């Protein structure tokens, strides 16, 4: 039977206090909000912490407010379920809300937070195993070992970025506010990630995500496509977030972020450039299929899936292309409906 190891749970009264506790306890401490990622991993020995600093109870992390520029500031402690059930949010940021809706199952969305989902651990089927399994096969560099079991020649860990909301937030150009005892800073969501499955977060361990800022989305629409085998629960085998801008019938800007095919979500917006100047109608009526296929192919080019998740890596790369086409069409459809 797997049991949680012993740990101390600290319950700060504010984010500032949480930041002080993190500074005080250093590497012994980890942050926990919903616990849906961390606690099972502590049972399996994938993560170890003597001290957990709780954030889930802090009301100041659960605020949702309009910002001056017409965007939205969402506290990191807001649960995925709250996002999913917010109709106004779904109108403004359909891709982000859909990504939240596709995380795991209702029970886990009720507990999991949007800040936590941005930090969700990278996955690998040589790593997401019990301590005994990993010991039997040989530990990997992500935990307790020193080589990558998927790509033994690799100098870095090849675990897969598995957050659904991160690519969706990146496509929207979102930022996060990070708080630590040393101060506060705002960075783009894309700056949160490193291309390394082990050290995948670019923030300092004691920095707390206080909120996520979604910029104004006037003239924008967004979409998120998630490939997985079942209708629920599973992590993405491939994920594509798209945001398109069109004030009228013509696309003015496009962003594409792909996930689950590398150790971080990949911003491949350059691949969207051919879309600029296309009319929404031509894209949707099949006149620009070749162009769209080309966009999808170049968007998926950096995808380098390996044999460390469910199903064949060649298939997962193909699915990324298909996901791009799908996500572009979906965002374009929403824009066209709006312009009509």
């Amino acid at each position, binding site marked *: 039977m797997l049991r949680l190891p012993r740990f101390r749970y600290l319950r700060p009264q504010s984010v500032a206090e949480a930041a002080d506790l993190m500074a005080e306890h250093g590497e012994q401490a980890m942050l926990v909000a919903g616990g849906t990622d961390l606690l099972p991993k502590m049972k399996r020995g994938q993560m170890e912490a003597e001290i957990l600093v709780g954030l889930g109870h802090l009301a100041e992390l659960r605020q949702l407010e309009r910002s001056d520029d017409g965007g939205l500031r969402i506290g990191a402690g807001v649960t995925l379920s709250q996002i999913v059930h917010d109709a106004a949010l779904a109108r403004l940021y359909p891709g982000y809300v859909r990504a939240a809706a596709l995380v795991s199952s209702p029970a886990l969305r009720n507990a999991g937070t949007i800040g936590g989902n941005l930090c969700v651990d990278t996955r690998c089927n040589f790593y997401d195993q019990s301590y005994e*399994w990993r010991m*039997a096969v040989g530990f990997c560099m992500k935990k307790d070992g020193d080589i990558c079991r998927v790509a033994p020649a690799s100098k870095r860990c090849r675990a897969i970025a598995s957050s659904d909301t991160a690519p969706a937030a990146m496509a929207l150009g979102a930022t996060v506010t990070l708080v630590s005892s040393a101060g506060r800073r705002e960075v783009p969501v894309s700056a949160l990630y490193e291309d390394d499955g082990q050290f995948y977060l670019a923030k300092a361990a004691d920095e707390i995500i206080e909120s996520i800022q979604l910029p104004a989305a006037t003239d924008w629409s967004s979409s998120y*496509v998630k*490939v997985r085998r*079942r209708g629920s629960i599973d992590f993405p085998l491939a994920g594509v977030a798209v945001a398109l801008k069109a004030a009228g019938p013509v696309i003015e800007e496009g962003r594409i972020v792909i996930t689950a095919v590398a150790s971080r979500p990949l911003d491949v917006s350059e691949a969207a450039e051919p879309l600029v100047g296309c009319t929404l109608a031509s894209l949707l009526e099949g006149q620009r299929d070749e162009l769209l296929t080309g966009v999808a192919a170049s968007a998926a080019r950096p995808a380098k899936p390996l044999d460390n998740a469910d199903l*064949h890596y060649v298939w997962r790369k193909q699915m990324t292309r298909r996901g791009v086409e799908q996500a572009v069409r979906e965002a374009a459809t929403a824009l066209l409906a709006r312009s009509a």
Partner: protein
Amino acid sequence: MTTVLTTGPGLRGGLGESVRRPDGGPKARGEFAFSSDLEAEDMLWAHLLRSPHPSAAISSLDLSPAFAVPGVAAVLAAGDVPGRQSFGLDYPDQPVFAGKVVRHVGEPIAAVAADHPITARRAAEAIAVTYEVTEPLTDPEAAMEAPPIHERGNVLFHQDIVHGDPGATGEVSVEGSYATAMQDQAFLGPESALAVPAGDGGVDLYLATQWLHVDRDQIAACLGLPLDLVRLHLSGVGGAFGAREDMSMQVQLCLLAMRTGRPVKIVFSREESFLGHVHRHPARMWYRHSADADGNLVKVEAKLILDGGAYLSSSPAVLQNAACFAAGPYRVPNAVVDATAVRTNNPPCGAMRGFGAVQVCFAYETQMDKLAAALRMDPVELRLRNALRTGDTMITGQVLSGAAPVAEVIRAVAAAPLPAEPGPSDAPEIALPGGAGRTAERDRVRRGIGFAVGFKNLMYSAGFDDFTTARCRLEEGRVTITSAAVEVGQGLVTLMQQIARHIFGVADVSLGEATTAGIGSAGSTSASRQTWMTGGAVEAACRAVAERLVSSVAQRLERPLASLRLDGGRVCSDDGAVDLSLVGAASGQVFEETAVYRHPPTEELDEKGQGNAHVSFAFGAHRAVVDVDLDLGLVRVVDVTTAQDVGRALNPLQLIGQIEGGTAQGVGLAVMEEIVLDRGTVRNPSFTDYIIPTALDSPPVTIAGLIEEPEPGAPHGAKGAGEPPAISSTAAVAAAIRDATGLELARVPIRPQDIALALAAFEEDRQ
């Protein structure tokens, strides 16, 4: 289509009614105590040290570091087993603790009892084992010729069937090679038990299992104790599906309890559960079907290889089933079947719902579709033309004497209306392949329809002395039924009450404890046998009590026995002069009767695989409708329609539950369920990576027919329904995917990559 048997005026809860389960409410409310909820004062926790290697010699084992861990009460290994060193359902070839060698990943090497589960785990980890790792034998075909990995050799069992003229030829023949993956039973309640040492030198074991008495016999042999000092008591079972037929930790736990003199509990983690119980045998199957130009089957040839993994378990019986049912529910005058179960360093395989009939059904039904195509015949028509009927001879030479409504199940399913064809835009996205992920592109989605028929035996076969014991006690108008039969979730507890109500006409029926202490064996809850067997024993025990009650009234009132009867909960005379309640009739007496029920004897198969090996058979058909995204290869099972040969529906609600559950388990094998093996190591021992259909992935199951043709000799005419619904749904779903894609797809589960990459390669070839 279901018939309701009448039970007596005004009485509810009798036979034929959709009676609710006594354990339904507590289970729905989370109040039901499963075996993992057991506890005792001063209890220790056990942990097993398991082999990390599929094949290795153990050159040294040092337990002392575990003893040194504070809180550890006992550490045991090979050498600490006082009785027989090994166990096994068919033959004891599986060591309690691995001694000199380990033969599969997860094989127990040592056991620790400590004051906390984490302490026990850490102590087990501290044990120093030196392994000399050897190359694992994981290919079942290579295993037949490879040097033996066990003193009993690598061929676990071989069964030939030669029927009719092996040289017969048809005008049309089709051939194919097929494979099925290793499937897990995926029950939700992990292996768990509590062993309590007793003052008499014995032990009481509380556990979830499928057959208390056979566990007891094996445990007693290993402990070196007389049977009456080992008492097993049933605890709440969180699903079984065959995985609890074999022992997983029973002996080790009892040994720890006896060594420490304290109660010891164990609960497997999910990963341990994957490694600690047997699975459905992966199969490799070659087939050739020959028919005349009209589509009459002339001959079926099959070569079957089942991978039994490291130990024997029930491989011989599974293999015999696969061989006996290899030709399907069809009239096949000539057959040659060559079936072998082999030993490898893969995880051990044994019983799982369908027991050998599932793998061959996938192959022979694929063959029937191929044959229909070769003959340019409608596949349903081909099946109807060859469908077995009562009086036909099967490939084992056995004449079908019972009900065999094969044509009826086929017709019922074929006649059922198809689900609406979705227009290009009216299906909700959640209903498309990829579901909520919104990955489907509607014009790349193709619909397919597939059809399959299957069958298997009910009860134990081939000369096995299969019996069940049950007791009925009537005291102050209250009926108590006691049996050691195991409720695994199927609803036997409900049925036992229904039978007693049916006979005594009273609503109040209690159930005694299921235990080996004080009652004989009820046999296994497997082989779809408990409705028939324990149903039969309960019926017999109740009838015996009823007879004694009536004759005691006859004696007391000095009336002829023939003038009295038990009717609607009262003992009455034909002339109306006697009309007594049960309490009045008993007049302070307590009546108790124990009955032993046996089905008619069966024979072993001879060297040509001929013989009357089976008592009864159940037949079923499925039609599956799927939508396939041709680019992604994702499959949505839209609808599964089925008809089942049930004999008699004794509890329609529970029967439908069995049909839906069995169908879903077959759908799982068709599209997602697979224990992924990498040189003997299980790559996906968790429910994150071993995926089973969720409610969103499970199709609506439409029941087109519950064919109620009462089975001669079966109590109330009812056939078991636990396994038959799990046999043909896999084949039907695979056929539907083939229909949608045009691909051969000769292996299940069919993965998205099998469709998408094959179609993409096909496209490339064409260009």
